[in-house]
């Protein structure tokens, strides 16, 4: 396949579908991160009592804060696993076609 710049030949439909899926995944994961983080910030800012609830000797805010950090890492993991795995394989196959 020529460089997928669309010059000359029409772009490969399988490739275009893949590009769309990638953009959709990026959007979804960004949205998940944005909503969970700003949900947390909104609680801190406008309802701090929720995060002050006692959990053992600590408070709910502590596991929630750590949970957000872990979530951020897991989300990047999901993305890189798909993009460096299935996605790159298809792109490589289409490019060599």
């Amino acid at each position, binding site marked *: 396949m020529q460089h997928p710049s669309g010059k000359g030949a029409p772009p490969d439909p399988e490739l275009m579908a893949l590009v769309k899926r990638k953009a959709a995944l990026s959007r979804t994961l960004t949205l998940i991160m944005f909503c969970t*983080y700003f949900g947390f910030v909104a609680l*801190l800012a406008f309802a701090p009592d929720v995060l*002050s609830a006692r959990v053992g*000797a600590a408070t709910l805010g*502590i596991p929630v804060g*750590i949970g957000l*950090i872990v979530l*951020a*890492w897991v989300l990047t993991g999901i993305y890189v696993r798909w*993009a460096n795995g299935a996605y790159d394989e298809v792109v490589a196959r289409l490019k060599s076609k």
Partner: protein
Amino acid sequence: MPATQLGQLSPVAIAFFFAFIGVTLGITYWAARKTKTTSEFYAAGGGISGFQNGLALAGDFMSAASFLGIAHLVATGGYDGLIYSVGYLVGWPIVMFLIAEPLRNLGKYTFADVVAYRLRQRPVKTMAAIGSITTVIIYLTAQMVGAGTLIKLMFGLEYETALLGVGVLMIAYVLFGGMLATTWVQIIKAVLLIGGATVLTLLVLNHFGWSYGNLFSSVRALPNGQDLLTPGHYKVATSGFDLVSLSLGLMFGTAGLPHILMRFYTVPNAREARKSVFVATGFIGYFYILTFTIGYGAAALVPAKYMAKVVPGTPGMGNNVAAPLLAEILGGGPFLGFLCAVAFATILAVVAGLTLAGASAISHDLYAGVVKGGVSDEKSEVRVAKTATVVLGVIAVLFGLLFKEVNVAFMVGLAFAVAASANFPALLLSVFWRKFTTQAAVASMIVGLLSAVILIVLSPTVWTDVFKLTSTPPIPLKNPAIISMPLSFLTAFVVSLLTRDDKADAAFEEQQMRATFGG
């Protein structure tokens, strides 16, 4: 607690200190022979692996201010300090999902390359370089002031001597070793910092019988224990609205920091770029999780009087001392010495990365891109980059002396706000929005930059704390991003709709393909 050795030059600290300087200068000597071309100077020839770049990104990003500062905030102010631990991390997924790949695929050495990809080079690169240089100088000044204060606190060196030492070393790394030396300084620092923080965390857990229940019970038993464990007591923000503004700046600032963005050109392709964000997020996240234990460990174990403000006649030692004092209590003098050396390494790695990013904005964007119109020879561009390195180093030392009294956290906040308002919107829209025009890019960067700076001047942090004015500050927010960032986006939309850029429009498909698949 016995009298602390903090502020005295301990033999262990000196040994670690010279070992670090020796090793990093050795690396610089080695790197200097491989640093001749522009590609080698700016991007280590693109030969860094994803994992190495991940570690270097972590080393570039985690500042001594964030380590010592957050631990101290938590130990004295409680939960609200941890807002920074979470906020500094959540920008990384944004970098991964929206920025890393197009950046790697469209640019050569700087993020200005990407913003200018299908727009007119001269105006866009000029403004993007101004945004970069402003962010770099503000951040660099904050780091220098932090460095002078910390080294004085830890080694007992004079503030001015410490500043000069940091300035000379960082110029040496960047000037002779370019990106290759900077990368390895950052990798070594990341390993040292994460290792040091891990040992400190294990010592805390060991002290509390490996039980978080015991740790938090001890915190709860303190006179202010309830406050320490609940949010809303330490004033990191003036209101809930202001807190949202702070969080916005933290989340999107990371995606606009020139020294972070620049690191994506050191890896060979988008695949390695993705891997490096995953590795960086893992290490940085792990480190920030440790700050929870270190902060509360310090709250439980370090007597509050030592962590109080510096007032003559009292034992208070001011900001940043919680983690070092905790290290001394649990690990003794040698561990304190080690941690001081780690803090020093931490500062050097960040200022070297910043200096390199600032020098690249001057030589690659302004000199090669604007003055020479994209046609310059390697030799003269490297020469300009090296001159810029020295000039920036001198500016950093001078500003460090000049702004000695300014609050470091405020300057870091300002750098993030400028990055989120001036750099990030233009970068994002140039990649994703077809209708984005040259005029819109320039206008949004100007508006983002000016509004962030003006809002912070009119805020309590400058109006009251710096200018010492007694009147009510015109802007009640300490953090400008909630106004300046939307203002920058709004400017971009309005100006784009009012202007036409047919060339940019026509080049969008090609750009999108290249952003996705590389050249």
